[in-house]
């Protein structure tokens, strides 16, 4: 197991190198000069523009820029934004907010999705099952920003149960509404995955055996049906944590949450490559770690899977 984990972590190195190179290339290839654009319609003396290009290494060839970024990153210096703030500080402020939001969304979708999916799977074809299928279909079909604006209007503005926006005060209560919005689509997927899986496992051989042993229905469902049914769900949830964090741009915009999504959005608009690349690197690491955790969870959920 130890060697398995070590090997997986070593694999992360080329993944991070490759993805930073790719992102750097994309930001680099973005047309237009970000420094010139800072001056808007008025322009600036050439000397000033040159000075700033030099300061952000933008006068270097693309590969050199990337190597300089890596060199800094290794010693913990992720560079500066155009406003002169260290990128590491900006990520340090925004990242915890997004992590909290994504974790809340993940818990929301996992708990509610698995419960509703299990019940629906056990009562396949009944009223609850059908209504859950319709609900999840609607949630998947409606774009997330529509859902976000709707909940914000109803619960934030009209009923005033939650603050309409979050702003600087990212408390559990303030993030509840955004977390539900962010987790809504995944909730629908978790529900459907769990339901299908549970329904199929109900007629599996090992479940029939368990019933034949005389186990109570509750134990059969918990020990034999649910545990096996959760493999696709766990795979999905693991990959989803990264997707939730990366996909929080829309939700963070609607609810004005100062997280990674807002940060990277602004950096892309300004063409601030150090910020974009650093944020993406962090996201890549999150993906690597969560997918590792998912793989380890497999072994626990399904005794047939072993890692050497």
């Amino acid at each position, binding site marked *: 197991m130890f060697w398995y984990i070590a090997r997986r972590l070593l694999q992360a190195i080329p993944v991070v190198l490759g993805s930073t190179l790719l992102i750097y290339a994309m930001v680099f290839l973005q047309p*237009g000069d970000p420094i*010139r654009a800072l001056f*808007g319609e008025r322009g600036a003396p050439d000397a*000033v523009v040159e*000075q700033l290009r030099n300061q952000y290494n933008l006068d270097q060839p693309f590969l050199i820029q990337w190597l300089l970024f890596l060199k800094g990153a290794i010693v913990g210096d992720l560079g500066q934004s155009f406003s002169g703030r260290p990128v590491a500080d900006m990520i340090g402020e925004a990242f915890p907010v997004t992590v909290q939001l994504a974790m809340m969304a993940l818990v929301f979708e996992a708990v509610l999705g698995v419960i509703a999916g299990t019940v629906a799977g056990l009562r396949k074809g009944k009223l609850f099952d059908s209504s859950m299928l319709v609900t999840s279909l609607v949630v998947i079909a409606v774009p997330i920003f529509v859902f976000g604006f709707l909940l914000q209007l109803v619960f934030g503005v009209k009923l005033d149960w939650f603050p*309409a926006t979050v*702003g600087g005060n990212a408390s559990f209560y303030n993030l509840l509404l955004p977390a539900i919005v962010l987790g809504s689509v995944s909730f629908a997927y978790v529900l459907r995955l769990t339901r299908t899986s549970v329904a199929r496992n109900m007629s599996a051989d090992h479940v029939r055996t368990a019933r034949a042993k005389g186990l109570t229905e509750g134990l059969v469902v918990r020990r034999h049906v649910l545990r096996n049914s959760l493999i696709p769900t766990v795979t999905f949830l693991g990959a989803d944590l990264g997707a939730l964090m990366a996909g929080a741009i829309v939700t963070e915009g609607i609810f004005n949450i100062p997280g990674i999504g807002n940060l990277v959005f602004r950096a892309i*608009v300004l063409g601030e490559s150090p910020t974009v690349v650093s944020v993406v690197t962090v996201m890549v690491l999150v993906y690597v770690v969560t997918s590792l955790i998912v793989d380890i969870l497999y072994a626990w959920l399904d005794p047939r899977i072993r890692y050497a």
Partner: protein
Amino acid sequence: MRFTRRARLAGVALVAAALVLAGCGGGGDDDAGGNKVITADVTEPQNPLVPTNTNETGGGKVIDLLFAGLMTYKTDGTPENEVAESIESDDNQTWTITLKDWEFSDGTPVTANSFVDAWNYGALSTNAQNNSYFFESIEGYADVSKENPKVKEMSGLKVVDDKTFTVKLIQPESDFPTRLGYTAYFPLPESAFEDMKAFGEKPIGNGPYTLESWSHDQELVLAPNKSYQGAREPQNAGVTFKVYTDLEAAYTDVQAGNLDVIEIVPDGALSSFETDDSVQAFTEPSSALAAFAFPNDLEHFALDDEGRLRRKAISMAIDREEITDKIFSGGRTPAKDFSAPTMPGWDDSIAGSEVLEFNPNEAKRLWAQANDIKQFEGDFVLETNTDGPGNKAYVEAVVNQVKNNLGIDAKPKFYATFQEFLDARDARKVGAFRAGWQPDYPSIGNYLGPIYGTDAGSNDGDYSNPEFDQKLKEANAADSDDERFAKYAEAQEILFEDMPGVPLWQTDVTGAAAKGVENLEYSWKGVPEFHNITKE
């Protein structure tokens, strides 16, 4: 009418536009006394809060409250002395400036050096300040703004004593005092120069407010500056700017009563905000001019007889009223000249300005006349970036009007980002292009010189007409405001003949405030006069 606004739920495009815009807002903190703190939206300032480095609206409106310049502007744009006791010149070229007794909020006095050092800092190329071009009319600017400058101070700035300094300009400029209320010309305390970066995080100013705290991407808290003695006396207990990246979110907060003032209503709410009973709506004329320009050598549209006829024909083929009504729900005012009605000395009936009126028959006649000189081939192409709010819609509308009313092939060309558009423009690889202008100080001259003067910094169409340059020069040497305004009008008459650009409309300011907010007025540049705002 709250549901009308939610009609936008259907529109993905609007959300995209709203994401591009950035806004900000604040929560309503109540003061212990009857005096309340006002909350307003802001975008995260793009730079540390140093006056010579702040050229965008987010940081700009904060800095304007933290500092006081030599001049300030009344709500209608009339300049008046603030820190300056007097600004005088015999020849409009060498100006003698004397100061009132004034203090920074840390108790140190505002001296002649506070200005001179700040301006020299702003102009020096190695400091790479965003507003450095503001000092270009001062003698010696060329020496400090080049690469590897040998001198660090402009020769045109001389300190006479603690309260007096002189400014020598490269040429006479009669509206020089008018511009001294702009952000770039604010003074800096001596302590700033020790560590400008640290200063920008926690600036010490001499204006109506002081910066209490700045939580990046969250909020900026401003409290009244007790030692401030100027004309902009705060009527509230402070202003808290809440940072928004999405203007829709700020507007929602105003509706929910969590934010007092939103400076600009998002496009998605434009059609309904005036009838929304949960907010107070404001529509005020502003000084931002939307236009498009013709490159000087654009085939068929060059600065020659054929080109002049076609430029006028295009201008007259555009029904500005229809576009402002239908696309912008009345949130724009059709242009009557090359400046804006909020400018002192504005005139709506300059000779030749009828080319800005919709007249399809005359347009066709001029177009046919141009065809007699040389037959038109190809398309009329209007280029723009699409990442600015409303750009795409208005360029498409203009192109359609030209196509339908002139019966020619016309099409838009879009650039996804402002950067890309600027690059194409700087490389002179564009056809007719969108060109907006927001003046820095209330002077018609600021709409003319920087854009249409020969070789001027923002003259991206490379327009050059010696007669026009001469009129500007005369305006700069004028002895009185009336004479200056008359010369600007004459200069505009030349522009109406040449039509290097086609003015379209002024962008109205469309703001909203929560219920109970009072005394919200917009300044000549379309920014709320924050110091006057009160609430119940």
